[in-house]
């Protein structure tokens, strides 16, 4: 489909109404005026955020800059990709139509599928990364989230979705094997499995950091398990099929659990629910294993319903909250940590580490696993991929912008006191106090957005902030989740409830994040178990593992998968250096390297098709992503600075141990051994991830060069099957699409039949 100049109604069967509409872009007068207006407002908002800055820029400018840029990119850049590269054909049946079985393949209303796709791609990632990256100031994070999604993240999601639609909904790993050959395929599969392992482990650390020593949080989250079990039983035996009803009951019980958490934290039970990080890590492993082997109806499915409900509801609520409360930004546009690389939340300079830390929201390789394999089996028409793929990613980016806002509106002393590890805020003591934390943050030389040095913080700032949200301490609550929750309570209590509900909102936000993370952990463990048993079933003699209902195999594979992420989790929560600082970069690198694999597959296909003129569209994000991730990997592996290089730190601690010394923040010989072990593991993982991606890229380079020499080679695209259904491309049907819908109606037919048979 090149740019059409007039309206064409496309037919595949003379007996049927049209199955698609091609129409030129709407360039009517009012339409031009609307887009000019949007572009103008966006330009003003960017001007306010990036150039004027001011003493305290208002958060509403961020929202406006983001939304206006998204709308413009969706209208023009995504449309360019559609016309010049992907060229969707609505005369072609999608896998959903062709293989419709009423189960995993089924044409699904575009608006409903948009919701499903969004719920599947957005989790805790876009909430955590921007909060940590806020230590470098508000501007670099804002720019990367908004520009990154338009030219990188949205492009990846959209193009992978389109490729998978054209390949019967095959997964990224299968497409890599088909397009890049067996070596690239195996490297891609190993990459996906190891990256999932690190992802689950790091999300686990985030949730544990939010819950450790917090009886309120632990009680509320623990209650989600009986709530889910109740929902599961209700849905199976009492009122099957009433999903919305049971989810509403579940949300009600959840709110009750959050309120009850406050009572528990003040009662004699508080001790029972005050758990150490290590205990929580073991409990999380047990939970992941149980969720992987228990029947889905009992635990996984009801939790997923609850999580979807909370996700959509809370994000809409937060957006409204920000617009109503219109908070002011406290963080400067740029802090010195981006330049000198000594930030407390994570070490390293702005380039490359900002782009690693903010993965989800700007460019997330994990989305390629949803955009291939799941969503293509449900999409009605090829032309809807722009709305679902690109539009879905824009929505996630918006979530990331809101997370960034909640971090940069906080008092800077609080932000840095929460996000610096205890080794720094404690000032040498084992447990940091408000006094030691105040001394630490006052020593940072913080300035206001206008450049005026901030007056020193009083220790009571920390104790009052903790009391305000019903926690004993908020110092060194690293991992991003507590900061986000604190920022969210700051916004929401101004809109609903005032001071009296501040603690409720904090724990509501913690619960909301923890719920997402547990959903990712349980679903991820189960998916990884299936991938692992599928992979080893190809080894001769182990074919029995192919059958997922074989209990022994299920238990064994679940155990191996949980042992994989569990060991990194335990390592992270006991790490004397603070697990988030050392492991979050690895998580970001892993996620971005997966994006590199996905973009490599897309780039290879575009080159094979001979679209050299437009290869820059996936090429630019691919090259940028490779530069960022490989630079970051290089620094993590070879940097001589111990705070950055895993092996440099390893050598430092080995030398100290051998001369009988104990280096801070380690306090005992055992801590020294832990640091030595952990840095080695993290270094080896960095080498592994980078090597796998280099193999994939080299395999692709060989394929591309061969293809260019022979003037283009066939791709693994499946032959056309004529479509016999019709659905509009975007949320609102155009005039021509309404005409076609009317034609179907006049013919007495439904345009999207419900699961036809072939």
């Amino acid at each position, binding site marked *: 489909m090149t740019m059409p100049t007039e309206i064409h109604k496309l037919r595949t069967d003379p007996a049927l109404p049209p199955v698609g509409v091609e129409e030129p872009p709407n360039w009517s007068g009012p339409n031009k005026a609307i887009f000019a207006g949007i572009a103008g407002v966006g330009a003003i908002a960017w001007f306010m955020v990036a150039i004027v800055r001011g003493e305290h820029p208002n958060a509403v400018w961020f929202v406006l800059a983001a939304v206006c840029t998204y709308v413009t990119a969706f209208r023009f850049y995504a449309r360019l990709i559609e016309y010049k590269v992907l060229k969707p054909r609505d005369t072609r049946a999608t896998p959903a139509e062709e293989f419709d079985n*009423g*189960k*995993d393949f089924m044409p699904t*209303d575009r*608006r*409903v599928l948009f*919701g*499903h796709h969004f719920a*599947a*791609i*957005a*989790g805790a*990632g876009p909430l955590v990364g921007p909060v940590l990256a806020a230590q470098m100031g508000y501007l670099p994070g804002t720019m990367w989230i908004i520009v990154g999604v338009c030219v990188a993240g949205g492009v990846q999601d959209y193009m992978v979705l389109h490729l998978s639609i054209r390949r019967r909904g095959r997964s990224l790993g299968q497409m890599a094997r088909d397009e890049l050959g067996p070596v690239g395929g195996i490297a891609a599969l190993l990459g996906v499995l190891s990256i999932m392992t690190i*992802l689950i482990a790091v*999300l686990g650390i985030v949730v544990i950091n939010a819950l450790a020593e917090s009886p309120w949080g632990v009680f509320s989250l623990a209650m989600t398990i009986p709530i889910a079990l109740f929902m599961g039983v209700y*849905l*199976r035996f009492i009122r*099957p*099929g*009433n*999903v*919305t009803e049971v*989810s509403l009951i579940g949300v009600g019980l959840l709110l009750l659990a959050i309120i009850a958490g406050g009572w528990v934290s003040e009662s004699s039970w508080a001790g029972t629910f005050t758990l150490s990080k290590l205990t929580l890590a073991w409990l999380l492993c047990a939970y992941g294993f149980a969720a992987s082997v228990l*029947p*889905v*109806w009992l635990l*996984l*499915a009801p939790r*997923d*319903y609850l*999580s*979807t*409900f909370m996700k959509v509801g809370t994000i809409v609520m937060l957006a409204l909250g920000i617009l109503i409360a219109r908070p002011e930004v406290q963080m400067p546009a740029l802090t010195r940590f981006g330049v000198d690389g000594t930030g407390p939340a994570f070490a390293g300079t702005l380039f490359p580490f900002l782009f690693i830390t903010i*993965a989800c929201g700007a460019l*997330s390789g*994990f*989305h390629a*696993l*949803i955009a291939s394999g*799941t969503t293509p089996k449900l999409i009605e028409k090829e032309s809807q991929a722009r709305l679902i793929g690109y539009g879905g990613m824009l929505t996630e980016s918006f979530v990331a912008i809101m997370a960034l806002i909640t971090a940069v509106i906080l008092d800077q002393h609080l932000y840095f006191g929460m996000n610096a590890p205890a080794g720094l805020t404690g000032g040498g003591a084992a447990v940091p106090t408000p006094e030691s934390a105040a001394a630490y943050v006052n020593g940072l030389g913080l300035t206001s957005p206008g450049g005026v040095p901030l007056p020193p913080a009083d220790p009571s700032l920390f104790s009052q902030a903790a009391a305000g949200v019903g926690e004993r301490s908020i110092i060194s609550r690293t991992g991003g989740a507590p900061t986000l929750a604190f920022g969210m309570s700051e916004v929401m209590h101004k809109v609903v409830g005032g001071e009296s509900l501040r603690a409720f909102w904090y724990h509501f936000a913690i619960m909301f994040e923890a719920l997402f993370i547990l*959903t*990712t952990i349980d*679903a991820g463990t*189960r*998916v990884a178990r*299936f991938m692992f048993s599928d992979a080893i079933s190809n080894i001769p003699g182990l074919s029995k593992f192919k059958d*997922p*209902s074989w209990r022994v195999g299920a238990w064994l594979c679940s155990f191996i998968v949980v042992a994989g992420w569990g060991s990194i989790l335990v390592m992270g929560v006991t790490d004397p250096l603070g697990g988030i600082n050392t492991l979050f970069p690895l998580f970001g690198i892993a*996620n971005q390297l997966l994006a590199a694999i996905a973009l490599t597959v897309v780039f290879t296909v575009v080159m094979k098709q001979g679209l050299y003129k437009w290869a820059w569209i996936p090429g630019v994000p691919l090259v940028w992503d490779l530069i960022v991730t490989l630079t970051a990997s290089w620094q993590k592996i070879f940097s001589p600075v111990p705070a950055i290089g895993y092996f440099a730190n390893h050598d430092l601690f080995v030398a100290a141990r051998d001369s009988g010394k104990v280096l801070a923040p380690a306090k005992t010989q055992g801590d020294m051994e832990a640091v030595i072990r952990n840095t080695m593991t993290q270094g080896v993982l960095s080498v592994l991830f980078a090597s796998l991606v280099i193999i994939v890229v080299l395999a692709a380079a060989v394929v591309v060069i061969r293809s260019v020499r022979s003037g283009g080679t066939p791709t693994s695209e499946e032959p056309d099957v004529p479509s*016999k259904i019709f659905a509009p491309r975007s949320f609102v049907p155009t005039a021509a699409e309404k005409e076609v*819908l009317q034609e179907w*109606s006049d013919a*007495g*037919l*439904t345009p999207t*039949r*419900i*699961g*036809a*048979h072939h």
Partner: protein
Amino acid sequence: MERRGSDANAHRSAPLASATPIGPLRRVLAAVRWYVRALMGDDAYDIYLVRHAREHPGQEPLSLKEFWRRRIDERDRNPTMRCC
């Protein structure tokens, strides 16, 4: 292609497209209800019934309870990924 007229089809199209004149508030509420039910999957059994009637006319469809039992158990074999 099945002919229009079966009541079970009504839920497939958004109520905003409905031809009957109803108040704007009612229409918005109906649209929200349609969206939430479709998103959460409450309408799965209705869709199944229509499909079953077309593909296996004359055969007894699964009961509501049995349908949902099989639908959720299907996810035991086909786990869906949730992203970060």
